[in-house]
């Protein structure tokens, strides 16, 4: 028995063959829809692939992978599964000649297509691989194959805009698809026009297709792009509504080569109620035959759905039919589809193939999430139009581009559109550290809208924060209102900057393992924290802050010695005042009562040629006063560097003072008149060199 069944199958199979849109046509439609879809924006904006669809992976651009998929979907024997009859009683019966192949809808969601399988779910898995696989090569492979898979998925959509594929018509040779291909190759400007515009309004599906009831045979909503189950065979007007499957529109409004006016066909496989003879009126058109213009009569679609185009030629026997009232079913007048008909068809079907393909790609990339906050308190939000219920997880890349999940950063959440979660804790990865600290990939996997296993990826920045606390080493009191900065040790750029609060704490974002702390103004000089209570003047000597430096509150406490300069003074014997004070040109006056109407008056004048601080380590000289234009002396500590903080009590240089002073002491009366001879009147002029020591002080 089985042998006869196979024989019958051969009989069915061999004499007929059909072609979908030709491969180059599929490629062009796919390329156009890829270009119009959000895919490029998602790649750029969500995944950080700045070249979008032009990104190269696996030796080709993603746009190449997409078109390659649409090309390869026609490989033997996959094409047997590219038909869908929207009027079949059941989608399991909607394939080519009912059961020769699967319905294209079922095929597109069949996870058992073979190896490899390119069902929607498989493509979702490939996309998940592209986002999460550890090695760059595997991720690239996943991304390339994701786009190949999407190319295959849109191929199925495009076939639903080919009448033969929706009318159970395995026709071969001269047909609609050939014409489209010929035009694509030889009249590219005409074809370009088909790609870019549709005479039908709106031409694109209403977004309500996403929320139509799912069919258990093919539960992913994309099935509704092909068949929304709204056209039942008796209601062709519905096919002009925007909420309609592409196969329904095509089936109800166009003929295929062997399914012309078959509304009364006795073979149920061939019987399609629309278009029918009542859907059209006859009209003459001028057509070009070679160099001659001749009249040809056509059926023009005037009702029952889409209108205003040539539906078929009127057969040569038409007049006889009318004159003798012949039975249509017995004496076929053989209307046919000619080039003009095909061109009218293509002008309506090709743009729909583009828009529906674009819609499918947009659907694949529809998910939108963002993350916000920092690792102390972060959150994420569903920015899409559909609820998300699944797992959100963070991944990061280490220095070797190995992608790793962030430990503890996986959350199962259900988020309505616009809803967010916050207050989540995150431990910035340190073992191994991130290649680009703070940069993560947020990956969602789970239910989104009616899709059970959606995948969304979004590159996010989640800053990590620390709280440097600055206190005085001497007494532990906080430094309030001082600037602290986090500096990237790699680039030297300021990552963040903050002011210390009343407790001496500042809040800074940082990159673990790549950040130094810069304290510009607590001392006279800028300094980098070098660990403990030590400091450096250059970033190369700075401590690279590690997570281990932080306490549980992410605080790093830095005790800072505030330093000043000290140097010995010589006391003038008579006035008992400094012989050469560190002072600009000036004077000192003091009058102290020593008896009734008697005062001890001291007057000292200082004259500065030059006072210079010379560092001991490198001989660097800093004029402190007496230089050109100077009006006041500068503290020698101005010549200190951050390393001097580590040298409290040590001599770090010397003061060279080239000065004069005049010391005068005299007893006076209450009116300042001298009484007797001056006690002393001494003049000094010399160059004095004194050591300068680092001292810690309170401020």
């Amino acid at each position, binding site marked *: 028995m089985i*042998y006869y069944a*196979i*024989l019958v199958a*051969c*009989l069915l*199979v*061999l*004499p*007929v*063959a*059909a*072609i*979908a849109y*030709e*491969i*180059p046509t599929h*490629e062009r439609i796919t*390329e156009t829809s890829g*270009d119009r879809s959000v895919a490029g924006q998602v790649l750029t904006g969500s995944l950080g692939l700045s*070249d979008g*669809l*032009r*990104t*190269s992976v*696996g*030796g*080709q*651009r993603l*746009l*190449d992978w997409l*078109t*390659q998929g649409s*090309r390869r979907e*026609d*490989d*033997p*024997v996959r*094409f*047997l599964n590219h038909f869908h009859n929207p009027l079949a009683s059941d989608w399991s019966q909607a394939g*080519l000649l009912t059961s*020769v*192949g699967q319905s294209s809808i079922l095929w597109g969601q069949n996870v058992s297509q073979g190896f490899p399988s390119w069902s929607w779910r498989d493509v979702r898995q490939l996309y998940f691989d592209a986002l999460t696989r550890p090695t760059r090569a595997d991720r690239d492979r996943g991304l390339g194959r994701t786009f190949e898979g999407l190319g295959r998925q849109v191929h199925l959509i495009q076939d639903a805009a080919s009448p033969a594929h929706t009318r159970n018509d*395995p026709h*071969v*040779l*001269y047909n609609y698809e*050939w*014409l489209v291909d*010929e035009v694509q*190759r*030889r*009249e*590219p*400007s005409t074809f*370009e026009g088909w790609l870019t515009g549709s005479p039908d309004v709106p031409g694109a599906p209403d977004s309500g297709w996403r929320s139509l009831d799912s069919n258990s045979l093919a539960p992913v909503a994309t099935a509704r792009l092909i068949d929304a189950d709204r056209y039942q065979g008796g209601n062709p007007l519905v096919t002009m509504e925007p909420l309609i499957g592409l196969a329904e529109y095509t089936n109800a409004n166009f003929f295929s080569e062997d399914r012309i006016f078959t509304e009364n066909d006795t073979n149920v496989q061939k019987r399609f109620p629309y278009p029918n003879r009542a859907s059209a009126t006859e009209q003459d058109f001028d057509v070009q035959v070679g160099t001659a213009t001749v009249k040809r009569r056509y059926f023009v679609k005037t009702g029952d759905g889409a209108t205003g185009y040539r539906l078929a030629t009127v057969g040569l026997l038409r007049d006889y039919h009318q004159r003798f009232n012949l039975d249509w079913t017995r004496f076929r007048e053989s209307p046919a589809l000619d080039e003009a008909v095909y061109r009218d068809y293509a002008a309506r079907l090709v743009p729909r193939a583009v828009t529906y393909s674009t819609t499918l790609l947009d659907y694949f990339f529809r998910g939108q999430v963002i993350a916000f906050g920092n690792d102390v308190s972060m959150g994420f939000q569903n920015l899409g139009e559909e609820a998300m219920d699944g797992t959100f997880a963070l991944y990061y890349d280490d220095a070797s581009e190995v992608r790793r999940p962030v430990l503890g950063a996986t959350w199962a959440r259900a988020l309505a559109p616009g809803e967010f979660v916050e207050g989540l804790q995150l431990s910035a990865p340190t073992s191994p550290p991130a290649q680009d600290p703070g940069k993560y990939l947020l990956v969602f996997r789970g239910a989104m809208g009616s899709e059970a296993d959606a995948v969304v990826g979004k590159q996010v920045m989640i800053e990590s924060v620390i709280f440097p606390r600055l206190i005085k080493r001497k007494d532990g009191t906080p430094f309030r209102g001082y600037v602290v900065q986090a500096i990237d040790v790699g680039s030297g750029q300021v990552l963040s900057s903050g002011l210390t609060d009343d407790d001496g704490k500042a809040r800074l974002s940082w990159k673990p393992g790549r950040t130094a702390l810069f304290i510009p103004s607590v001392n006279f000089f800028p300094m980098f924290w070098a660990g403990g209570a030590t400091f450096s003047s250059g970033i190369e000597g700075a401590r690279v802050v590690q997570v281990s430096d932080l306490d549980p509150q992410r605080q790093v406490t830095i005790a800072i010695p505030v330093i000043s300069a000290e140097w010995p003074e010589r006391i003038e014997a008579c006035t008992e005042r400094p012989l050469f004070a560190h002072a600009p040109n000036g004077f000192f006056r003091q009058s102290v009562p020593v008896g009734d109407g008697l005062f001890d008056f001291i007057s000292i004048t200082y004259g500065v040629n030059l006072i210079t601080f010379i560092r001991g380590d490198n001989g660097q000289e800093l004029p402190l006063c007496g230089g050109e234009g100077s009006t006041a002396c500068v503290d020698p500590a101005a010549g200190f560097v951050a390393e001097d903080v580590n040298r409290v009590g040590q001599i770090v240089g010397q003061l060279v003072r080239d000065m004069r002073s005049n010391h005068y002491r005299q007893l006076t009366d209450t009116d300042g008149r001298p009484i007797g001879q001056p006690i002393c009147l001494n003049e000094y002029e010399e160059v004095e060199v004194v050591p300068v020591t680092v001292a810690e002080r309170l401020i």
Partner: protein
Amino acid sequence: MMRWLRLALPCLCLLAVCSMALAQSPEGWDRYLDKYRGPYRGEVIDAETKAPLAGAVFVALWRRDRVYPFHIVTENYAVRETVADPEGRFLLEARDVEERAPRRTHRPEFLIFVPGYGSFPRFQRLPTGFLGGVFEGAGTTVELPRHQGREERRKNLDSIHPYSISDTPFKDIPQLMRRVNEESIAVGLSSYPPPENR
């Protein structure tokens, strides 16, 4: 054994009859190569200055239809390329390709690519309209517009899919690959890596 024979013989007969039927099917629109149509020739010039575009790559791609039950699959049959001379002229013989072409080999499709210019057949200024057979006989002059903007040049590259033309483009169309890669780098895109680096 006999039972299999009873099945196999009718099937073989059907196949033979089917092949004959298909062979006799009308092949419309001069879609297929009926004879040697070459050589293919033409001239490539700058659409504005009318200066010849030396080094333009002219690629001819022949596809063929392979008939399967219920389906015809179009696959690449052969590809050839040539480069325009200093006067912008090119000539592609391809006699070997066309005279040995199997049945249902399509008449060739053409691509002309010059870095920095819109390519044929998408972006040329001339010829327009029906392009069938334009490179046959005396050939034609192709005017390519200079693309100034980076995005425009990237768009032009979007229309070229080397692996759609050949599974081994670096071997079959090396001149095209060289120029596509030059253009890719010039507009800030990654070049197509040769197979050993993929």
